[in-house]
């Protein structure tokens, strides 16, 4: 009864809030619908870069209400996979992805079915097998939970400085980055490098690299505000700007009146999904990246910690949270209400 009353009060408050800025409101609506879509599409979560960790990250960081059973289901599937593979995966980014998901839902990545999924990130050589992308995601994963760099069981002992330097040294002439570290700059890799460097922007060398990277990102933004040729490129740019605290309407990132977020939303379908390219229908990978980009927008608008900054353990949703209504949960409750009422 009391809980019901509180939700009603929350609803009222939210209703009043929503008469605020149009941009924020439309992004919030989109967030709720896209979270609901992912919950439907990935009702049976898997381990993998589609239908798995990124769905977990997006939902966890959206603040939208997700049944505890869903988190538990993902964790059970993950634990089974980790045990079946004896903790051994092919790519370092596999570990980085799982660390991000587990941290987002408030679970310990250092012990899943008895295996330490953070440990491989201590091996610099192994991470760099994937080039700059390996360094970027190792760093983001280490920083998401403020983890100490694990001792390397083999190869060169990684440090945050080494990963950072690997990213800086692979910056291209034009200020961007690309998966193979050769021109031309790739919008996704450039945006992801900026996301990884963001926590270190007090360092003058990093700050300069970020400025060059932003100049590059602005230069390769398309005339309609989009990036590259897919919604994922737009999503990564949105996340980069939000992570760096740059307003989405910063003139450098508005082309012909369209921001990166405007461009991203043009890929969004009425059911909350995102297309990979225009006209090709719902795409799961695009939908997951679209969701977490909207979560990044939401968090920036609400003054919450960044998408990949999960050092505040209270923010994790997968661990049976206390019955307190935070700003994020307020939005979440409203999301759920709208979805359940069939209004979205």
């Amino acid at each position, binding site marked *: 009864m009391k809980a019901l009353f509180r939700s009603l009060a929350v*609803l*009222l408050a939210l*209703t009043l809030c*929503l*008469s605020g800025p*149009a941009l924020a*409101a*439309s992004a919030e*609506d*989109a967030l709720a619908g896209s979270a609901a879509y992912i919950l439907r599409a990935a009702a049976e979560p*898997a*381990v*993998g*870069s*589609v*239908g*798995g*960790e*990124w769905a977990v990250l997006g939902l966890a960081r959206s603040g939208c209400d997700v049944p505890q059973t869903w988190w538990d289901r993902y964790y059970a599937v993950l634990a089974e996979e980790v045990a*079946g*593979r004896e903790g*051994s*995966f*092919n*790519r370092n*980014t*596999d570990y*980085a*992805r799982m660390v991000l998901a587990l941290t987002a839902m408030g679970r310990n990545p250092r012990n899943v079915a008895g295996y330490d999924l953070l440990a491989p990130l201590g091996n610099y050589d192994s991470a*760099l*097998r*994937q080039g*700059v992308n390996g360094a970027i*995601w190792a760093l983001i994963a280490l920083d998401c939970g403020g983890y100490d760099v694990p001792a390397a069981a083999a190869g060169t002992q990684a440090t945050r400085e080494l990963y950072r330097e690997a990213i800086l040294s692979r910056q291209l002439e034009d200020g961007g980055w690309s*998966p*193979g*570290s050769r021109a031309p700059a790739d*919008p*996704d890799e450039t945006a*992801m490098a900026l996301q990884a460097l963001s926590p270190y922007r007090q360092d003058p060398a990093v700050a300069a690299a970020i400025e060059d990277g932003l100049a590059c990102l602005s230069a390769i933004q398309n005339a309609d505000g989009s990036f*590259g*040729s*897919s919604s*994922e*490129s737009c*999503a*990564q740019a949105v996340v980069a700007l939000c992570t760096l605290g740059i307003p989405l309407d910063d003139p450098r990132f508005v082309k012909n009146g369209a921001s990166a977020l405007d461009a991203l*939303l*043009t890929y969004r*379908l*009425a059911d909350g999904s995102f*297309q990979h*390219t*225009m*006209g*090709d229908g719902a*795409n799961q*990978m*695009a939908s997951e*990246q679209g969701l977490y980009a909207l979560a990044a927008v939401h968090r920036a608008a609400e003054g919450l910690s960044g998408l990949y900054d999960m050092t505040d353990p209270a923010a994790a949703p997968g661990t049976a949270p206390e019955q307190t209504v935070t700003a994020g949960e307020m939005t979440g409750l409203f999301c759920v209400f709208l979805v359940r009422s069939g209004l979205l």
Partner: protein
Amino acid sequence: MKKSILCLLLLAALVLCLSGCKSKTPAPPPDGEVLTEDGTGAAAADSGEVNPGTVGYYPNAAPEQPLTPVGAENAGQPEETQPPQEPQQPQEPEQIAEHEDPGEPEEPQQIVGYEDPGELEEPQQIVGYEDPTELEGAKIGTCTISISCSTILNNMDKCDPAKASLVPATGWILAPAAVSFEEGESVFTVLQRTCQQNGIHMEFSNAPMYNSAYIEGIGNLYEFDVGELSGWMYSVNGVFPNYGCSKYILQNGDTIRWVYTCDQGADVGGSNFS
């Protein structure tokens, strides 16, 4: 009393709010605009792990596979004694060594257990199905499949030392072979069956809603084993599709080539990872 007033208030506020929300719904995508697909976005993000994770897992060739390894008696060397995850264990060298003419890799070569490619036009029994009655009425096609990692031979300096011994001297993990398939089968199912029948290690990842497998490793050679731009790609009739191999439905007479690239496709005539 108090409650009903509150509810009324809420309703009124909601109606107001929702009429506002409606107008802010994102515009539908503009018609007619079809952007060129280059796969970059998907690939890069997947890298966050830029690539699909792992659901399907073939630790090694025959013993632990979920599907029946039909024709195993013809599959060449017995695999049972090999440790399931030993990456050093060369799977194919024996088989490859049987190739008499490495200089002419394009020539279709018969694989033990398969029909002579010269007889392909006739309808024939499918090797690889235990229960032929299941196939009654099914249309049968024939395609050619090959698996090559010859690009590694020019990039041995970049090759993971632990994997160097797995690279066949000819570059062929499977020389072009004629195989039969049932109507509606994809490049993936044919690769999967061919690998099983020939005792070739293969690992793929998948996700229930992704609708396609992603080939991570064949013959224990994995993406990133030969530099940051290395991995498996496939072409059909010389064209590299920009979508997953489970989505490519085979036509009779198709030629499938699985090739290992060390340069994101540039060294094999394609531009995208599989």
